[in-house]
């Protein structure tokens, strides 16, 4: 992975992290006592900081680091989460987002960014100071807190090596540590002595040989034979952190209050049952750990010796002394090397052999048994990997390419029926034609499955757009002095990525409108007999092949009188027409371009780019917007969107000898109407269908084709009834053909301006089908 790829990955992950952080921040604000949430938030920030550390983005790291410190304090309960902290964190997060965008664009952070970063970091750290005496003690306090929250400390038997320490340094609360470096450690660039020297809070340090020094002639200075014992007064977590690279080579022991007199004597005999149970559980655990250690390939002699010692100590802790002594005798008589010791460990296993009354260990032992001698650690990891869900990151380009390919596949597949037809008609090969058709149905099925599968890849839960809303509503309602709660439902509903993405802006527009115009100030709401807190509800659900989004508020609703007045004032409709509109129609006026009722232009709304933008954006993805409003009770906006827009199902029709496609989702029905049933009124034609009057238009006329609609043998017109918004209209065509799945290609170049056509599609026989856009035609 080269550095640009790494950077791309970083940016991708950082954005993801930020999104999560933003969401968590809001959730935490709602439930500040939820430890799990706080931990998750902290982990996200921590990940982000860690990622920043990979690159030299100082300003970025500075801000994130400050945020992490602050959150750490909150998490440990030393600092109460409040709105001030939330604001500071959100601001810092926004800035981090900006920086990430900058990095994505320029690959680097401008030097100027650092001043702002410092200011933000300072603002964050400001929250740190009042609670703690000095920021420096915070991490220590955190470590202490984590140590305190650990399960009740049961005195562990003091290992023998502690006795070698001078009594003066064995003070309670200190951490004693024995560090047994591997023999080969020098070749790994380790310097155990130096590492030990640098231990935080070092109080005592002594070095001894692991085994007696060899004779000078055979002494190998590059095989480490040091055994370092040290005592530190730093918190255990710090010491652990210091030795984090060599955890398997150190033994830590937290010194207890009085150096327990002969703790190894017979602990199980004197402690009560519960402790005894715990003790045995631990013995079994340590035993198994030692066995796992022995099972490693290429184990060093020193490690074998160490496990040998450990087993010896464990034996001393056994409750069953007779079994222990027999095991000890067997241990003493053992041949050197890892294999006999491992065998012995199985034979004299505390759970299996002597102390058979142990409650839990069988569960621990069982999985260990089959992979003895292999590498348990590796096996563990592999197991975990298989269980966890695997996620693959794929760039959208690749998915789009797949999408295009499957599109071409669909088109190519559609050529087969033509081929079958030709085999039959031209070559009189009926048998062959039938076989081609059979093959076609197989390929058709596979292609459809493939298409479906790729669609699934592109599906995103609509919740991804909703995530930003929490923040938006919070900020805007705060700014406006309104109290609003956002309720989100059905965020799992899935739709195509493009559809989801095209939704984001219109939805934000709608939310802003609701917050600005819809929901009233708390005082006004109370006066109207409503709860002070307004509710903004965003609900998503799937209905057939459409996704329905309802955005409703319990605000004042649309003031139709003002809407009419404004529309007339802005010259959008004539005054006499405004008065004749029904309430429902008047509400729809807000969709007119250039409409705005706001008196002053605020940064929220009122710039005249309002609902018409929303409607355009939604219609661009073949969606529809409906608005309904009840004065005093609220407004409801319903967006209906297609699940996917990659493949369009069209119906082919014929008129004036040409073929055209009409998008299937617009078609209500196809009917044959006898010519005499058509009513003529002046130039308009209508027909009564199922008790409803449907206006008729001749498609030839609309397309400026100079031919009258053709009648079939029974003197009937072919009428294609399409839905345009809330109305239905009948199009007179010559004939209907079947339906087909096509990949709609928008018109390009000089043709872009022709709105009567939605685009073109390549058919299976190689011909080009023009797809009509009835909305524009009629």
């Amino acid at each position, binding site marked *: 992975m080269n550095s640009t790829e790494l950077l791309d990955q970083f940016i991708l992950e950082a954005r993801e992290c930020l999104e999560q952080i933003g969401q968590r921040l809001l959730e935490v604000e709602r439930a500040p006592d939820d430890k799990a949430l706080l931990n998750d938030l902290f982990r996200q920030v921590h990940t982000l900081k860690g990622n920043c550390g990979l690159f030299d983005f100082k300003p970025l790291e500075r801000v994130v680091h400050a945020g992490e410190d602050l959150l750490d304090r909150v998490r440990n309960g030393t600092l109460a989460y409040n709105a001030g902290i939330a604001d500071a964190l959100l601001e810092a997060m926004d800035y981090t987002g900006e920086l990430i965008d900058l990095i994505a664009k320029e690959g680097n952070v401008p030097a100027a960014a650092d001043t702002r970063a410092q200011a933000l970091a300072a603002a964050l750290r400001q929250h740190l100071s009042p609670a703690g005496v000095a920021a420096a003690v915070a991490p220590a306090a955190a470590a202490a807190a984590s140590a305190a929250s650990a399960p009740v400390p049961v005195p562990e038997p003091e290992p023998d090596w502690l006795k070698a320490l001078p009594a003066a340094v064995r003070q309670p609360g200190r951490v004693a540590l024995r560090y047994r*470096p591997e023999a080969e*450690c*020098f070749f790994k660039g*380790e*310097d*155990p*002595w*130096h590492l030990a*020297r640098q231990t935080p809070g*070092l109080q005592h*340090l*002594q*070095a*001894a*040989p692991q085994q007696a*020094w*060899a004779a*000078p*002639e055979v*002494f190998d*200075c*590059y095989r*480490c*034979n*040091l055994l370092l014992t040290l005592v530190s007064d730093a918190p255990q977590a710090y010491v652990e952190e210091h030795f984090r690279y060599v955890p398997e080579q150190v033994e830590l022991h937290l010194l207890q209050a009085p150096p327990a007199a002969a703790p190894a004597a017979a602990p199980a005999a004197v402690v009560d049952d519960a402790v005894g149970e715990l003790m045995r559980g631990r013995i079994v655990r340590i035993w198994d750990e030692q066995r796992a250690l022995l099972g490693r390939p290429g184990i060093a002699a020193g490690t074998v010796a160490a496990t040998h010692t450990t087993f010896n100590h464990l034996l001393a802790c056994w409750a069953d002394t007779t079994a222990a002594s027999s095991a000890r005798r067997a241990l003493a008589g053992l041949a050197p090397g890892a294999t006999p010791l491992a065998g012995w460990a199985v034979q004299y296993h505390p759970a299996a052999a002597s102390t058979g009354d142990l409650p839990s260990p069988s569960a621990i032992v069982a999985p260990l048994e089959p992979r003895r001698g292999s590498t348990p650690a590796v096996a563990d990891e592999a197991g975990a990997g298989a269980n966890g869900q695997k996620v693959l990151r794929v760039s959208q380009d690749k998915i789009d390419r797949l999408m295009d390919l499957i599109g071409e596949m669909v088109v190519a597949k559609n050529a087969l029926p033509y081929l079958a037809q030709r085999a039959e008609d031209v070559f009189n090969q009926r048998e062959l034609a039938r076989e081609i058709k059979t093959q076609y149905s197989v390929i058709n099925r596979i292609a459809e499955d493939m298409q479906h599968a790729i669609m699934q890849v592109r599906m995103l839960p609509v919740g991804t757009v909703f995530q930003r809303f929490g923040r938006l509503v919070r900020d805007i309602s705060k700014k406006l002095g309104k109290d609003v709660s956002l309720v989100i439902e059905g965020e799992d509903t899935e739709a195509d990525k493009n559809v989801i993405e095209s939704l984001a802006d219109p939805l934000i527009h709608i939310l802003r409108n609701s917050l600005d115009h819809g929901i009233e100030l708390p005082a006004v709401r109370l006066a109207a007999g409503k709860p002070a807190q307004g509710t903004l509800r965003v609900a998503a659900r799937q209905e057939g092949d459409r996704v329905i989004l309802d955005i409703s508020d319990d605000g004042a609703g649309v003031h139709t009188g003002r809407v009419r007045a404004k529309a007339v004032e802005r010259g959008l409709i004539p005054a006499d027409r405004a008065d004749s509109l029904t309430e429902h129609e008047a509400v729809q006026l807000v969709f007119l371009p250039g409409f705005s009722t706001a008196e002053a232009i605020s940064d929220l709304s009122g710039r005249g780019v309002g609902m018409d933008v929303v409607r355009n954006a939604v219609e661009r993805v073949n969606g529809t917007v409906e608005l309904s409003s009840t004065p005093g009770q609220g407004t409801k906006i319903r967006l209906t969107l297609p699940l996917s827009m990659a493949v369009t199902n069209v119906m082919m029709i014929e008129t004036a000898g040409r073929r055209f496609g009409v998008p299937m989702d617009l078609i209500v029905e196809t009917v044959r109407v006898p010519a005499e049933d058509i009513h003529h009124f002046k130039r308009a034609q209508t027909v009564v269908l199922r008790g409803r009057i449907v206006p008729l238009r001749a498609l030839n006329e609309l397309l400026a084709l100079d031919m009258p609609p053709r009648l079939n043998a029974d003197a009937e017109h072919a009428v294609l009834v399409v839905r345009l918004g809330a109305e239905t209209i009948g199009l007179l065509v010559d004939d209907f053909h079947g339906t087909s799945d096509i990949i709609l290609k928008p018109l390009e170049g000089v043709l872009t301006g022709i709105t009567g056509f939605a685009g073109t599609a390549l058919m299976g026989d190689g011909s080009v089908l023009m797809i009509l856009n009835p909305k524009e035609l009629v």
Partner: protein
Amino acid sequence: MPIRYLKKHAALEGQVSADDAEALGQWLRDQNAPVVHLGKCDQVHSAVLQVLMALRPRVSAPPADPWLAEALNAAAA
């Protein structure tokens, strides 16, 4: 040069790295009664430390680092 091998003693100065351990060991073995001067020694690598601990030369001047001095004392005892 972190180690200067003089007629009467070897002087370890500054930071003595792992690379010097072998030569030091060899020198200590060659001498009848080796003496090392650690007065100006700031830091030794573990490999050097174990050479000093294993071959136990007489220390004419103890190092400034108390931990190192103590470790060597313990080994000499």
